[in-house]
């Protein structure tokens, strides 16, 4: 990590606090690598070309084409509290791959690519993978390398790119793909289903606790491309897995589109923890460039007493539109959503969750911590729905906003839809500002303003940060601090 800069300016003066962000986006480099990139634009031929390049079976091409045709009938959604400039879907290239493909050992991976992942701090090389984390790395459209595969295979765990899964485990993929997030779900889900290029596939067999964190790093490198990855996680009866997702992109003046789908299926008594640290390039101070992050994430707690927990730390992207959700179908199943969303400068985020209670005695917890700075707009949007079948279900929602400037916006849009009178649903919300008194108190004790803001923000977000796996929590804390440098006021 880069060192934190400490600004010794006198505290609390709005003008000083308003000064430019101290820390540059440090993942903003571009890797010079030969890329196989298809021409811009989207058509049935492009969909066929992607499928062909990936050597896909007929059923998958059909799935893509159905999705594409459906997508053509859809309008761009505009119900979120976001100002999204018109996107020309024909000016995007839908497939870009580093040319040296499908390496079988570390020696075959392009050294430039290894350097990139090195810079990102991803321990791709096997000998470095001592941290006990299995990593799948996706650069532009393809999965570059998955580590620890053999060790996981001994336990019957499948962790590979979704392209490999299509080839090696077609029955599993066919059984689950699109079952939680249908291509009919929404505009971006349809688009992703038509053109998704790669992503990760995880299958944890019955009764297996995955002994290490599984992790995917996503990186958009090529210019003028979109990234459309697709992640599918299946935890069979009594299985457990903790899955981490991280992402970065180069700094570019143009906007890049990222439209991903994550589907999770949780069977009887199984548990999935899904953690995200999202740090796509957010654009510059004036809002130029940055990634549009339009993501559909949903898990189905199909099994009785199953559990799905989403934890997200969202600091990047020019525009974020995502609502990781839980469908609580199994009796006594549990859904959790812990979120810290930070926006600064001209960033916009509209994020939250949906908890759909269908089974009896289902439980859900929502803890959302929004932090807005600069001229950003930060919205929480959440739905708690209790179906007539969901006797004795409970939800607790806590939704907090922290404002770091006078020009930012914090909004909450909580929707509650209860069709069962035995349900208990609670909602708490607070809005606060870092006060000048707090900053001066810290200053008087010798803590400079920047560091004080980091302390206070991390304190505010602690409840969510504590849910992150250890290895991630430290990085996320530092990220939170660095992200907000110079953005109070």
């Amino acid at each position, binding site marked *: 990590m880069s060192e934190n800069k400490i600004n010794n300016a006198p505290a609390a003066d709005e003008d000083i606090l308003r000064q430019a962000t101290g820390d540059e986006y440090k993942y903003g480099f571009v890797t010079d690598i030969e890329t196989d990139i298809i021409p811009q634009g989207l058509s049935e031929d492009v969909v066929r070309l992607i499928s062909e390049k990936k050597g896909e079976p007929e059923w998958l091409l059909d799935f893509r084409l159905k999705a594409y045709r459906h997508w053509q009938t859809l309008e761009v959604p505009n119900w979120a509290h976001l100002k999204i400039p018109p996107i020309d879907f024909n000016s995007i290239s839908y497939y870009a791959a580093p040319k040296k493909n499908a390496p079988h050992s570390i020696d075959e991976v392009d050294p430039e690519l290894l350097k990139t992942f090195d810079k990102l701090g991803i321990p791709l090389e096997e000998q470095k993978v001592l941290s006990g984390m299995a990593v799948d790395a996706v650069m532009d459209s393809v999965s570059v390398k998955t580590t620890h595969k053999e060790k996981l295979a001994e336990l019957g765990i499948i962790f590979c790119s979704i392209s490999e899964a299509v080839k090696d485990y077609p029955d599993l993929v066919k059984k689950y793909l699109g079952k939680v997030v249908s291509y009919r779900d929404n505009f971006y889900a349809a688009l992703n289903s038509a053109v998704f290029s790669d992503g990760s596939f995880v299958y944890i067999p019955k009764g297996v606790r995955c002994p290490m964190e599984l992790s995917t790093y996503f990186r958009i490198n090529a210019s003028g491309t979109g990234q459309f990855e697709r992640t599918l996680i299946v935890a069979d009866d009594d299985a457990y897995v903790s899955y981490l997702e991280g992402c970065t992109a180069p700094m570019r003046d143009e906007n890049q589109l990222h439209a991903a789908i994550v589907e999770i299926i949780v069977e009887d008594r199984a548990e999935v923890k899904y953690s995200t640290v999202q740090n796509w390039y957010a654009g510059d101070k004036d809002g130029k460039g940055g990634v549009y992050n339009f993501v559909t994430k949903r898990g189905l707690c199909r099994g009785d007493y199953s559990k799905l927990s989403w934890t997200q730390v969202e600091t990047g992207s020019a525009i974020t539109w995502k609502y990781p959700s839980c469908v609580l179908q199994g009796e006594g199943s549990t859904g959790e959503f812990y979120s810290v969303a930070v926006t600064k400068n001209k960033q916009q985020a509209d994020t939250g969750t949906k908890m759909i209670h269908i089974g009896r005695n289902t439980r859900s917890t929502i803890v959302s911590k929004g932090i807005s700075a600069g001229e950003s707009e930060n919205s929480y949007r959440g739905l708690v729905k209790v179906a007539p079948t969901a006797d004795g279900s409970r939800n607790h929602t806590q939704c907090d906003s922290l404002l770091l400037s006078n020009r930012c916006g914090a909004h909450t849009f909580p929707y509650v839809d209860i069709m069962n009178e035995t349900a208990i649903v609670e909602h708490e919300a607070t809005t606060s500002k870092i006060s000048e008194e707090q900053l001066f108190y810290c200053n008087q004790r010798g803590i400079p303003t920047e560091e004080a803001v980091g302390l*206070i923000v991390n304190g505010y977000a602690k*409840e969510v940060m504590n849910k992150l796996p250890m290895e991630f929590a430290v990085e996320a804390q530092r990220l939170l601090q660095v992200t907000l440098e110079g953005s109070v006021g």
Partner: protein
Amino acid sequence: MDNILLNVNNLHASINGKEILKGINLTIRQGEVHAIMGPNGSGKSTLSAVLTGNPSFTVTEGSVDFHGKDLLSLSPEDRSHEGLFLSFQYPVEIPGVSMVNFMRAAINAKRKYLNEEPLSASDFLKLMRQKRAIVELDNKLASRSVNEGFSGGEKKRNEIFQMAMLEPLLSILDETDSGLDIDALRIVAEGVNKLKSQENATIVITHYQRLLDYIKPDFVHILYKGRIVMTGGPELALELEKTGYDWIKQKYND
């Protein structure tokens, strides 16, 4: 005059264009305890805020020398690093930030300023344990969020605990006695006395003689309408306790 710690010379300060301090002169030497008394609104808290660099106030005239440094040119955190400490009248709550993390950030910021290595976790915790005892501060309080849900007495004890941690040269206790019952007052005062040495000095801002029974001042100043109108020994505080401030108001009202 080699042991002068603080020299305030003709200090004027205002807030929102309103002048509160109208020419303060004050000299404090190492090893001394100064009490500053005066009726409400006379500028006592403003003086402590201005000395520590609270940005709400503007210094319009005068100078302050703090052991050879031009105090007014330093940022609030550097004033702290140079050895100035304020025990706040109303300590603020910082939710979610544990006292341990807060103090560690404070101590290590100071060490960084002095070009020293940060304290190791174990050394730091040892230091905390040792200093906590001075104000009989519970271990549980130390692991809670800064001042959050603390009682009035706990907050003030926590202030003195922080003073013990930071080992300042000059401490300003701003109405540390307000809101304290007699037991808490005794604990706080004993804490302050334990921290006294030949090198450091203390300014005690208070309305009442009560605290001065515990923390014996060498000098008592009466601040009225932004000026120090009278300076004496401990007997001046006793006099005020008997007669109140009315005679001061009459004498110095224009």
